[in-house]
C-alpha cells in the first residue's frame, strides 16, 4: 500500500537532504574542515531514510559509521551533524564524538567505533523499552562485513530469545572496505542467518525506498506487537570510497557506474513524477529548500566555535566526585 503523500514527500525530502549534505561534506573534507576519516553513505539513502522515517521520535536508533542519513531521517538537525563532523562545540556530540553522532532528544543513541558493538547495545535498548513497558522500537544498522562479527550472533540471538522490539538492519553494499562479499560469506544473503535464530529474515532492494519503507513498517508492527526482532537486509551500493581518502580502486568502474544508474533518489523521483505525486514545481521547490537547509548548516558549522580547552576534562564521569585528583 502506497504511503500518504506527506510521507512520500518526507522520504523524498530527506533522501535529498542526505545526498546534498553528504555531497557538501565531500567538499568540506577536501578543504580540510572535516578531520579524521570520513565515511559517506551516498548511494545508501533509500535504506537510511526508508527505515528511519517510519520510526517515532521516541524510538531508538543505533546506526554506524555512515550515519548521516540515519540521523537526518530520525530528525537530528543537519547543522548539528555537520558541526559535529567539523569538531565544533555546537556539534550534536559537542565536538567530542565526530563520527559518534548522537542526539538523545530524538532517540539517536550514538555509534560504536568497533563495528558491530552497536548490535549488542541495541539489544539492550530493546530490553530497556520492553522492561519499561513502552512500545518503543530500536533499529540498529550494520554492513554485510560487520555481520561477520560475533556480536551480530550474540545480539540477535538474545533479542530473539527475549522477543525484543529490535530491528536488525544489514546495509549490504557488497563491500566491506576493499573486501567483496564473496570473500566473507558463502551464502548470498546475510538475512539467511535469520533462519538459525528463528526470526523473520527479509531481503529488500535497498535502492527502492518504498520497498524498504514497507519492510520496515512490517518489522515495526511486529516489534510493537511484542513479536520480537526482524532481520532486514537491503541490497545497495556505496558510490564513494570506504572513506574519503580511499579511491576504491578495488572496484570495477563499470560496476560503480551500473549502480549509479540505479540511484535510489533518481528512481524515486521518476516514480513520484510518473505517479504524478509531486509536480515538477513542487520538486524544484523541495530541492531549493533542501539546498538552503544544507547551506545554512554549512554556515552554522563554519561559524561555530571549537570547544574550549577545559572541555577536555569535562564530562568523563556523570558523578566525578573524588576523581579529579587523578587527571
Amino acid at each position, binding site marked *: 500500500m502506497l504511503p500518504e503523500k506527506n510521507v512520500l514527500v518526507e522520504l523524498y525530502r530527506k533522501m535529498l537532504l542526505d545526498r546534498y549534505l553528504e555531497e557538501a561534506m565531500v567538499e568540506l573534507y577536501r578543504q580540510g574542515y572535516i578531520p579524521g576519516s570520513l565515511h559517506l553513505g551516498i548511494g545508501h539513502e533509500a535504506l537510511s531514510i526508508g527505515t528511519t522515517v517510519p520510526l517515532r521520535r521516541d524510538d*531508538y536508533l*543505533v546506526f554506524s559509521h555512515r550515519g548521516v542519513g540515519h540521523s537526518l531521517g530520525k530528525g537530528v538537525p543537519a547543522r548539528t551533524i555537520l558541526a559535529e563532523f567539523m569538531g565544533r562545540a555546537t556539534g*550534536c*556530540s*559537542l565536538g*567530542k*564524538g565526530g563520527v*559518534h553522532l*548522537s542526539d*538523545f532528544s530524538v532517540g539517536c*543513541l*550514538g555509534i*560504536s*567505533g*568497533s563495528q558491530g*558493538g552497536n*548490535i*549488542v*547495545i*541495541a*539489544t*539492550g*535498548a*530493546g*530490553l*530497556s*523499552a520492553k*522492561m*519499561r513497558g513502552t512500545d518503543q522500537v*530500536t533499529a540498529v544498522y550494520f554492513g554485510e562485513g560487520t555481520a561477520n562479527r*560475533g*556480536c551480530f*550472533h*550474540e*545480539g540477535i*540471538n*538474545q533479542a530473539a*530469545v*527475549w522477543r525484543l522490539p529490535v530491528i536488525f538492519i544489514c546495509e549490504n553494499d557488497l563491500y566491506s572496505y576493499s573486501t567483496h562479499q564473496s570473500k566473507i560469506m558463502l551464502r548470498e544473503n546475510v538475512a539467511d542467518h535469520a533462519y538459525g535464530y528463528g526470526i523473520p529474515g527479509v531481503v529488500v532492494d535497498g535502492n527502492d525506498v518504498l520497498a524498504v519503507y514497507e519492510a520496515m513498517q512490517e518489522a515495526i508492527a511486529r516489534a510493537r506487537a511484542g513479536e520480537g526482532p526482524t532481520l532486514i537486509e537491503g541490497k545497495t551500493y556505496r558510490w564513494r570510497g570506504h572513506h574519503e581518502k580511499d579511491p576504491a580502486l578495488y572496484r570495477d568502474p563499470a560496476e560503480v557506474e551500473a549502480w549509479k544508474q540505479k540511484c535510489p533518489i533518481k528512481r524515486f523521483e521518476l516514480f513520484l513524477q510518473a505517479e504524478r505525486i509531486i509536480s515538477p514545481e513542487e520538486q524544484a521547490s523541495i530541492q531549493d529548500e533542501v539546498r538552503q537547509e544544507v547551506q545554512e548548516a554549512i554556515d552554522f558549522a563554519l561559524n561555530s566555535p571549537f570547544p574550549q580547552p577545559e572541555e577536555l576534562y*569535562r*564530562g*568523563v*564521569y*556523570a*558523578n566525578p*566526585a*573524588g*576523581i579529579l*585528583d*587523578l587527571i
Partner: protein
Amino acid sequence: MRRITYRQALREALQEEMERDARVFLMGEDVGIFGGNFKVSQGLIDKFGEERVRDTTLAETVIIGAGVGAAITGMRPVCEIMLADFVGVCFDEIYNKAGKWRYMHGCEVAVPMVIRTPMGCRGGGGAEHSQCPEALFLHGPGLKIALPSTPYDAKGLLKAAIRDDDPVVFFEHKLLYDLEGEVPEEEYIVPLGKAAIRREGQDVTILAYSFMVHKALAAAEALAANGIEAEVVDLRTLVPLDVETVLASARKTRRVVIIHEANKRGGAGAELAAIIQEKLFGVLAAPVIRVCAPDVPIPFSPALEKVYLPDEEKLQQAVRELLAK
C-alpha cells in the same frame, strides 16, 4: 551487631536497591533460579520475577553490551560476569563502550551500570579461572572500580555502585563469599573513593584491597608480635582512589608496601607506587615495594598456586626487608 556473610551482604544490597528503584535489574548467566555461580542472587528471582532477574545466553558481549544499551535508555542494570577472567571476551564493551559512551556522545547521557564479577584464586582454578584483572580497567577512562574486602563494604559499596551514575566494575573475591562480618540492619552506603584504615600503625603502611586486606592484617598481627606496627589501608575502590588517605598514611610511616593478588607487571601496585613516590619524594625513608604474584600464568596445581600467591609470609618478609634498609 548482627553478623552475615559477604554473600548475604551482597544479596541484601541487590535486594534493597531493587526494591528502592524499579530501574535496577540483574542479568547474567544462571543468575535466576540457580542464583548465580556463587549464589549471590539466590532467591531474588522469587521476589522480583524473571523480568528483573534475567538469565542470559552464554554471551558476555551481549551481557555487557545490552547493559550499556539499557543503561543509556533509562535502566540501571547490574550485569554479572561469571568469572572475572571472562572480562576478556567483553573487554571492548566494558572498556570502550561502558567507559566512554558518555564522553563520546556529548557528555549528556549517563551509563549507570554495575558489572559484578568474582575474581581470585581458590585452589585449582588455573590460568583462566583465577585472575584478578582490575589493573586493566584502571587504565580505562570513565570506569570506576570497587573491590570490597568485608561484608560491610560489600553491601555498602554495592549499593553505592548501583546508585552511582557511572559504570562501576565491581570485583568480588571468591574466597570472601563465606566470610562473616558485622552488617547493620539499618540502611547505609559506603561511598566510592574512601579508603578505610583497618589497623593503625606508625612503622609501615600496607596498601591492600579485596582478599589481600586479610593477608595484610594477618601479617600486621605477626609483625606486631615483633614490635613492628603496620598501618593497613584498605583502598576499597581504585577509581576513585583515595589519594589523600594513602598519602597521609605514607607520610606518617614513611614506608609503603603494596600487596595485591594480581601479577606485578602493569598491576595496580605500579600506579600506586608511581603516585606515592612522586608525591612524597624526600619524605619516604625507603622505596615503595610491591608484593604481588609473579608475571606468570596462574598454575593449576595447588602445589604451584601456593608458590604463586602473595600471602602473609611473603608480605611480612618484604616488610622486614624494607625496615632493614
